[in-house]
């Protein structure tokens, strides 16, 4: 089963879109997860609900909202275009944004859980040693929450690879620009004699997802072992 040039293009585009979606959303997810795990503020419940919205809304609705806001004539989209000459609707960058938003709640949940499991007594100990808030976060909290951050990033990456509804609504299905793996599979299923290609791409999707899971498991194990503070020689 050889991959055609077109298959490669689809695969690489999908990886690019998913990877950028993770890279761009990770800092925000860490910040939001920290706020939810550690701070109390008015409207926290509402904020929490909004963050989780993409998880429960139909993806098409999310995509439609994005189109309304960020399309060429949308309030944000027109600003971006007029001031910076940036257009993201119907571009691969838009696909990355859609994937990032759809994966955001998954990412936040995983990271938040790991922030909540960090022993605050260790943070207090760090502060007695001279570490201010930011330093405590960077040297204690974040490293100890690393397994959750990795899990969150890979969950969101896998979710991004499979993103369909929001993507097709927001950036359409443009070959070479926004036609990611799921969109390509869908297109082939709608094409006469496209079954072979659809099966080929579906197999790739399965392999990619499996690989993402394995990598995630491996990284989490490594990070957890570090977090438990065990010596290298005691690893069996």
């Amino acid at each position, binding site marked *: 089963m050889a991959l055609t040039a077109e298959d490669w293009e689809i695969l690489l585009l999908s990886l690019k879109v998913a990877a950028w979606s993770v890279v761009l959303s990770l800092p925000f997810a860490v910040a939001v997860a920290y706020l939810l795990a550690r701070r109390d503020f008015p409207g926290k419940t509402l904020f929490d609900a909004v963050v989780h919205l993409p998880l429960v809304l139909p993806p098409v609705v999310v995509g439609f909202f994005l189109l309304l806001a960020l399309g060429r004539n949308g309030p944000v989209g027109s600003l971006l275009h007029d001031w910076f000459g940036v257009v993201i609707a119907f571009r691969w960058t838009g696909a990355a944004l859609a994937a990032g938003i759809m994966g955001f709640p998954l990412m936040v949940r995983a990271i938040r859980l790991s922030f909540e499991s960090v022993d605050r*007594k*260790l943070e*207090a*100990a*760090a*502060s*007695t*040693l*001279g*570490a*201010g808030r930011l*330093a405590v976060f960077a*040297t*204690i909290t974040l*490293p*100890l929450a690393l397994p959750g951050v990795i899990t969150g990033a890979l969950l969101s990456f896998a979710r991004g690879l499979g993103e369909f509804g929001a993507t097709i609504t927001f950036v359409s299905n443009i070959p070479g620009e926004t036609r990611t793996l799921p969109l390509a599979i869908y297109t082939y299923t709608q094409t006469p004699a496209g079954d072979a290609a659809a099966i080929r791409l579906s197999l790739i999707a399965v392999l990619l997802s499996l690989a993402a899971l394995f990598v995630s498991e491996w990284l989490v194990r490594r990070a957890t072992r*570090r*977090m*438990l*503070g*065990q*010596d290298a020689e*005691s690893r069996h």
Partner: protein
Amino acid sequence: MLNLDIEHRLGGFRLKTAFASAGGVTVLFGRSGSGKTSIVNAIAGLLRPDLGRIAIGGEVVFDSARAIDVPTPRRRVGYVFQEGRLFPHLDVRQNLRYARLFLPAGSDDRFDHIVELLGLRDLLRRRPGNLSGGEKQRVAIGRALLSNPRILLLDEPLASLDAHRRAEVLRYLELLRDELRIPIVYVSHAVEEVVRLADTVVLMAAGAALAVGSVEQVMGRPDLRAAAGTFEGGAVIEARVAAQDMEYDLATVTFAGGTLTVTDLDALVGEPVRVRIRARDVSVALTRPDRISVQNVLPATITQIGAPRGGVIDVTLDVGGATLLRARITRRAAEQLRLAPGLAVFALIKAVSLDRHGAAS
């Protein structure tokens, strides 16, 4: 060095404590729940008292009246927690080096000195998860010291250790006390630690300091026995080794009230020691007995007859006008001998135990 006067309410618990320490080792002693840990947390800035004032080495770090509350990282306290709290993702060297990240460039680097002092050289590459309890506490102590603190706070650092490890860490703590001139506040509910380490004892009960003073002053007071709890009544005496008799394994120590013969004392001539004489090891005689196996017979004057407790009674004896001993005798003996304050007697001391080596500063 440390001045503290704070009030804090935590649910139904009310903490209202004031004491000052001029340096050396101040032991906060009392049962669990008496507020000891809250006090060290307040000193470190981990707990903000409702009211009061705390000054470390002349700097006011907390004053509710003047709205001063220096944040923990800038208080420069070294805090050794009960459970060590080593950072699990860092190895021992990185743990010890942690505070260095936040010290001004060019600060004193005592890394090698502290590592040698606490015997940490072989542990540097290990991770906290693979250390024994005693090793963890030694690393925690080193980590706190390497933040160049103005004061060292230790919250029951031996509580989670078995007897063997406890002795090991206690030896290091004695070393620190004598080697580094840093004031130490030490939380404990173990008499052994108080007697071995303390220069000043703050006896805590129900959130208040019942008594502040030297070990002799506080631990010897019969009226505080209820709060001091497990302390077995007796006297604690600062003494100095005067002679060693190798043939009989006997040492002679001198103290303000005279001399004592002590067996198997592992100390050099001239070295200061702190010895404890338990009340139950002291008998009272009206005449100097001869032909008796007891080696220590000291003339004394009765200063106080305690309240009887069951069949026994504690008698306080003044030895040489400077030292108070206590004798626990039967109530019947006290009546038969017609013991009364002012009576001249002889104190027969059956056993003397050594509590601590080294300078009592």
